[in-house]
């Protein structure tokens, strides 16, 4: 049985004003996550990642289709489904009335767990929060509040951990701490579903990845497979000046850095020739293996042209 099973999930938001189009946030999304997987859900802003997670968590209802957590329907059998889920919401929310420990005790209590302090201490310790246990939530910095959100999601030792952009706006140290901890829980058998905009994180952590675009699944593969099917290599160089239009269409440009997908030596020569012909001087030229970001852009562009034809 799958840990998570999304079956033809669609979500249509009614039009906000008369005459406006209804918004299709999810369109027949089907995918399964197996127990023990570290699964990545990627996509640009507005692709439907958070909507999908909201439906899974019971914060929102699907317009059609259904979602199961270890076989429990998130609507009809919500209590069982939610016991198995630990969700770290994307928004940095907190209850200003209480201290960190109080918040964690309450969260345990909602799941019917009394005297959870041993596990709470372990969570605090692993997330670097031990010295903040008695601090009021209001006094904590954004990064600390983020850690508490993670701890709150884990108080009931859920079999499935769902992280919705947990590292957005978070410093390097916390990212390291967080991923070490989550990776350890994953090794112990917890299933992890992650959405993130940091593709190097997804590449490093996720065994399998789904890419969403405009509410549809446009890729669903093992991470290694995705990387393998990508354009074999990337030509990376620095330039001052405007790229020729032919190259601009396929290039990934970050300031002076230009990256071009290449499949063979001939293509490399052709690209460099085009740059020379435009009277530009390329510096720091190198060729590297494609990474997940390249694959991501390729998949997104491919599905765009696919949608047009």
């Amino acid at each position, binding site marked *: 049985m799958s840990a998570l099973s999304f079956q033809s999930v669609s979500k249509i938001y009614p039009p906000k004003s008369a005459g406006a189009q209804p918004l299709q946030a999810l369109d027949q999304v089907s995918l399964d996550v197996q127990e023990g997987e570290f699964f990545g859900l990627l996509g640009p802003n507005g692709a439907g990642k958070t909507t999908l997670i*909201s439906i899974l968590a019971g914060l929102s209802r699907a317009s059609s289709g259904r979602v199961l957590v270890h076989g429990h329907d998130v609507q009809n059998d919500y209590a069982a489904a*939610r016991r198995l889920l630990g969700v770290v919401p994307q928004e940095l929310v*907190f209850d200003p009335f209480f201290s960190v420990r109080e918040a964690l005790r309450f*969260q345990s*209590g*909602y799941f*019917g767990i009394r005297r959870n302090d041993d596990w709470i201490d372990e969570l605090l310790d692993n997330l670097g929060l031990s010295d903040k246990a008695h601090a009021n939530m209001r006094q904590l910095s954004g990064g600390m509040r983020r850690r508490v959100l993670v701890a709150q999601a884990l108080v009931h030792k859920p079999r499935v951990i769902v992280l919705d952009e947990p590292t957005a706006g978070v410093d390097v140290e916390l990212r390291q701490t967080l991923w070490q901890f989550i990776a350890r829980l994953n090794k112990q058998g917890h299933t992890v579903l992650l959405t993130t905009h940091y593709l190097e994180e997804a590449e490093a952590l996720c065994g399998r990845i789904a890419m969403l675009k405009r509410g549809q699944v446009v890729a669903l593969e093992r991470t290694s497979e995705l990387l393998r099917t990508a354009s074999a290599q990337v030509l990376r160089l620095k330039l001052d000046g405007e790229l020729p239009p032919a190259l601009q269409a396929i290039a990934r440009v970050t300031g002076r850095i230009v990256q071009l997908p290449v499949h063979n030596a001939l293509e490399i020569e052709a690209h460099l020739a085009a740059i020379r012909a435009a009277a530009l001087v390329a510096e720091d030229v190198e060729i590297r293996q494609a990474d997940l970001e390249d694959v991501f852009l390729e998949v997104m562009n491919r599905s765009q042209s696919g949608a047009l034809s």
Partner: protein
Amino acid sequence: MNGWQTLFYKEVLRFWKVAFQTIAAPVLTSVLYMLIFGHVLEDHVKVYDQLPYTAFLLPGLVMMSVLQNAFANSSSSLIQSKIMGNLVFVLLTPLSHWNWFVAYVGSSIVRGLAVGAGVFLMTGWMVHIQFAHPLWMAAFAFMGAAMLGALGVVAGLWAEKFDQMAAFQNFIIMPMTFLSGVFYSIHSLPAFWQRLSHFNPFFYMIDGFRYGFFGQSDVSPWTSLAVVATALLLVSTIALHLLRTGYKIRG
């Protein structure tokens, strides 16, 4: 395992941590009413022929405090959690709509009765009080607080902004409590207003509560009990329905 007990306890702790604002302030307001109205009207008004005005006023003020604070508790807790976004912590749990209802309404009853008791303690010494039927008193205080707690749940779910909540409170709850016979016996009103008062469920709560003190009231306590029980049942049904369907909290 009872998750609702935790939510109930959290809700009680929430208002208790700011007790100055949630208990002491409304008690003080009622004490001021008692001092001012008592001073101005004591020698001029007698109710039920022989009852001094302050003795008549006291149960009304107590009940008004119970009702307003029961409403304020669930409604303000819900709207704050919605706007702060921290309602998500409860939304993610396996708690059922009944769990939510019992916790939010239960904590509202506690707050309402705590403020009512505070008002009673601070003003009781000013007048000679009787306790004709303590059970009636308790029944109306409890049911009134429960109904307003449930109404607070409805308002808290419905309102999307503090502005809307303030409108609900100031244009519905305040007038209905003020015009329910807290400050006067409705027999002193012109016929039209007397009839209109009979459509106000708050009137029956206060009238029934007062019966518990004096054994005297504008209408029969059984009538009041029937009206209040019906209103409580109706509002609770609505609140439970909204909680079950996740009205405005589950998209």
